[in-house]
């Protein structure tokens, strides 16, 4: 019996083997969404817990990696929905452009605040597409939505961020 078949049949050893094979990849995906190592570890365990609970629904002929990523994305999204926690802004930011450092610092702070105020489903795609440079099709597959909807959500997230910055009377241009 193959590993995935044994897992779907409820074999705990098969589940452990799958866990050890995929935990790093699942963690790496989640930490890029939630941006906190401790939370990402907890959500990795939560993801595999959901995977184990839903094992009877898994088709052993299917793609476990894609299925796990979808569940991980949902777990991360649930976390974003229930949390408004912000990550700390590092002192030494990469790629800082020229210009008044005080204005740049304030713009970054305002933008960061606006970003964390985005509705979770927009924040999810914006994080992956705009910050982490994930391809739209990978985001679509992980989130269980179409590529067109990913584009719409990125567009709307950008519009919300611009509006938020504009309302704060900050000019959104790299000086």
């Amino acid at each position, binding site marked *: 019996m193959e590993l995935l078949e044994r897992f779907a049949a409820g074999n705990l050893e098969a589940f452990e083997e799958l866990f050890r094979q995929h935990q790093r990849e699942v963690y790496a995906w989640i930490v890029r969404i939630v941006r906190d190592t401790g939370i990402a570890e907890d959500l990795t365990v939560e993801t595999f817990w959901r995977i184990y609970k839903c094992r009877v629904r898994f088709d052993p002929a299917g793609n476990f990696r894609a299925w796990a990523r979808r569940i991980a994305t949902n777990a991360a999204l649930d976390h974003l929905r229930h949390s408004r926690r912000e990550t700390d802004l590092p002192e030494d930011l990469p790629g800082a452009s020229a210009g008044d450092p005080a204005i740049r610092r304030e713009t970054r702070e305002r933008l960061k605040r606006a*970003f964390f105020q985005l509705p979770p489903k927009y924040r999810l795609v914006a994080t992956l597409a*705009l910050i982490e440079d994930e391809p739209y099709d990978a985001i679509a597959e992980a989130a269980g939505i179409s590529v067109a909807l990913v584009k719409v959500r990125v567009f709307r997230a950008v519009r919300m961020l611009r509006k938020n910055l504009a309302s704060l009377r900050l000019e959104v241009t790299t000086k």
Partner: protein
Amino acid sequence: MNNGKNEQEIKELLKQAIPPVRDTDLRRDLWPQMHRKLEDRPAPVFTVPWFDWALAAILGAALVFYPGSIPALLYHL
């Protein structure tokens, strides 16, 4: 200003405000934590909610006491 330029501008500013996560390596094996969770909350293989059992009981009773309802039930299935 077109959408592409808008997006690119925001993208550059965002990356300055919130840098991409570079260190995505898992530092420890999470299996012990997973194993503890499985022991604390064993996942049920298959459960039927109580109201499904109640519905089945009501339906069964109806079929026993009113056999005439069987054709109507079959028609609506």
